[in-house]
């Protein structure tokens, strides 16, 4: 395959894919409005928690893409050039994605943070000794300043990398590659810092007494799983609709499959288990409560779904070479893992630690038998799904809109030929 062949290929978004972008975005916004309408009926705590699930999922997909783009420049990778534009298109959503966080920010700044975050309750923060010690970090003002810093960082990096990469399509100047490589290390450090603290600020502080030093990595690895599943499906979708036939080959799917297997399945399980085992072994009530909530009542089966669905079954399915190279199973497994990514974030956000029930129970069995679904926050409402669907559709639609005015392959990248010649040994 030659670079000229790729340039003459169908590398512009066309047909149904062009129309789909705005349609998905509009449906997404409609779903969001519907969620807000349903939220007033279901209770605002349910709505905001569902909103947070949708936000962390859609953000995670874009952050995964941003990390992938930065990593390719950091390592000066050749193989990924033919798929990098798709990741850049997903990461470009960070340009507007911050708007979805503004409602939460306003809520916290207005002093209503307690609807979602326990630490938003100023009276509780003064009376509870453990929380009082954290009051400096969890003050609404400092929290908001940090949030604005993270969002600004991602917006700038996501926008700039898309801009630089597409600018190269026009003039073919190698200086853009040098520029992206030059900024990759500093952007990667900023990314690691902001992504870690964002996951701590936005998910971990839902249970403000609990902490885990593994948590930032856990959220990152979940995002990477979601992102690699998404980009495999996205590339497959574009090829099915007649785009980029020449530049994305079996070799690229194979490598994306390896990423999905290595990071999304194995490393996810490694991190999830490491976090679990240290807490289980040390057996400190302040830490074990978090897992206790996730094994009581209905959350127990959900945890098992993650163990089997996110690790054991995909591990067996993806370990062989041929499932990664054969084009039908890989998208199916990717779709499954994308679903698991949604469940994973849901499982992180929704459960509530039943602190009173735990402290008053004499034995574990007594606790397990008497616990109610309301105490552990278990129960599905339609808002859970509408919020998630809304924001995921907005990201998908936004991605297609982002890619409307540029090539679907970085045609002028000096390493494109390397990507086309690439073969897995």
């Amino acid at each position: 395959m030659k670079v000229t062949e790729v340039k003459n290929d169908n590398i512009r978004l066309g047909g149904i894919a062009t129309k789909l972008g705005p349609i998905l975005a509009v449906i997404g916004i409609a779903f969001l409005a519907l969620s807000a309408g349903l939220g007033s009926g279901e209770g605002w705590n349910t709505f905001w928690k569902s909103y947070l699930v949708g936000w962390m999922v859609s953000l995670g997909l874009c952050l995964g893409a941003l990390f992938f783009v930065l990593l390719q420049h950091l390592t000066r990778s050749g193989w990924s050039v033919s798929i990098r534009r798709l990741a850049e298109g997903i990461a470009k959503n960070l340009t507007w994605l911050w708007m979805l966080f503004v409602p939460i920010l306003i809520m916290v700044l207005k002093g209503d943070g307690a609807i979602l975050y326990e630490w938003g309750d100023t009276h509780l923060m003064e009376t509870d000794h453990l929380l009082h010690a954290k009051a400096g970090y969890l003050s609404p003002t400092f929290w908001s300043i940090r949030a604005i810093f993270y969002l600004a960082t991602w917006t700038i990096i996501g926008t700039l990398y898309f801009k630089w990469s597409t600018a190269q399509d026009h003039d073919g100047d190698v200086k853009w590659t040098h520029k992206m490589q030059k900024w990759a290390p500093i952007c990667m450090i900023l990314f690691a810092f902001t992504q870690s603290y964002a996951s701590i600020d936005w998910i971990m502080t839902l249970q403000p007494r609990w902490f885990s030093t593994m948590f930032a990595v856990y959220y990152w690895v979940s995002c990477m799983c979601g992102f690699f599943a998404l980009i495999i499906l996205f590339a497959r979708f574009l090829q099915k609709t007649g785009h980029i036939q020449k530049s994305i080959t079996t070799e690229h799917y194979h490598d994306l499959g390896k990423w999905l297997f290595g990071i999304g399945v194995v490393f996810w399980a490694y991190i999830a288990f490491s976090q679990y085992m240290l807490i289980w072994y040390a057996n400190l009530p302040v830490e074990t409560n978090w897992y206790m909530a996730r094994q009581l009542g209905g959350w127990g089966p959900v945890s098992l779904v993650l163990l089997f669905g996110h690790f054991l079954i995909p591990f067996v399915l993806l370990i062989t070479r041929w499932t990664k190279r054969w084009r039908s199973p890989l998208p199916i497994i990717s779709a499954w893992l994308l679903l698991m990514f949604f469940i994973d974030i849901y499982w992180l956000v929704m459960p509530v630690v039943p602190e009173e029930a735990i402290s008053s129970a004499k034995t574990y069995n007594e606790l397990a038998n008497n616990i109610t679904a309301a105490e552990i926050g278990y129960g599905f409402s339609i808002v859970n799904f509408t919020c998630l669907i809304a924001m995921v559709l907005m990201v998908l639609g936004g991605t297609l809109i982002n890619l409307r005015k540029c090539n679907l392959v970085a045609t002028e990248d000096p390493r494109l030929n390397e990507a086309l010649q690439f073969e897995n040994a």
Partner: protein
Amino acid sequence: MSEVTPTNVTRGDLYGLAAEFTTTPAIYHAAEKTNAAGFKWFDCLVPFPVHGLDRAMGVKMTILPILVFFGGMTGLFAACVLQIFTNAMEFDFWALLPVVGYQYDVSGKPFLAAAAFVPVAFEMTVLFSALTAVFGTLFLNKLPMFYHPVLKHEALSRATDDRFFLIIEARDPKFSQDEVETFLKSLNPEAVIALEK
């Protein structure tokens, strides 16, 4: 073109015939043609990895991953059995011989503490996989090999520098010295060399 015609090697002592090439495309196409001609016992000596040469030669995918998988499974199984047996076993043979594990109470955890067994099971899986990979590679490549017929031919030492050699071995069922020589010459080599065992 300076051809060395094999004359001084008797039929019983013949290891094979080597054709010498100077470029990678030449050895690549020669390997393709040799594979297409139906030879099974042939090999290429090259000074650096030539991409796609194994496919041109028709070399099949290695079975090493399958061996490694079963090696890993063995490690996993061994680790689980060992830990469960030594920590949590309690039974007797026909009410005569009681078998009890080392049932240590570690911070009130159950004897059959699955979470505590996972790190050991993981490490054993990795260890057995790695050992299978190392020794499997050696075994499948028939290593260590202390003698190989090509080593004693001075002409073939250039395979470590700037020449490419394709060797058709005498044990190939289709091997007949005259025909193979004609065939190798049809590939336009620099030379055809007879190799003694």
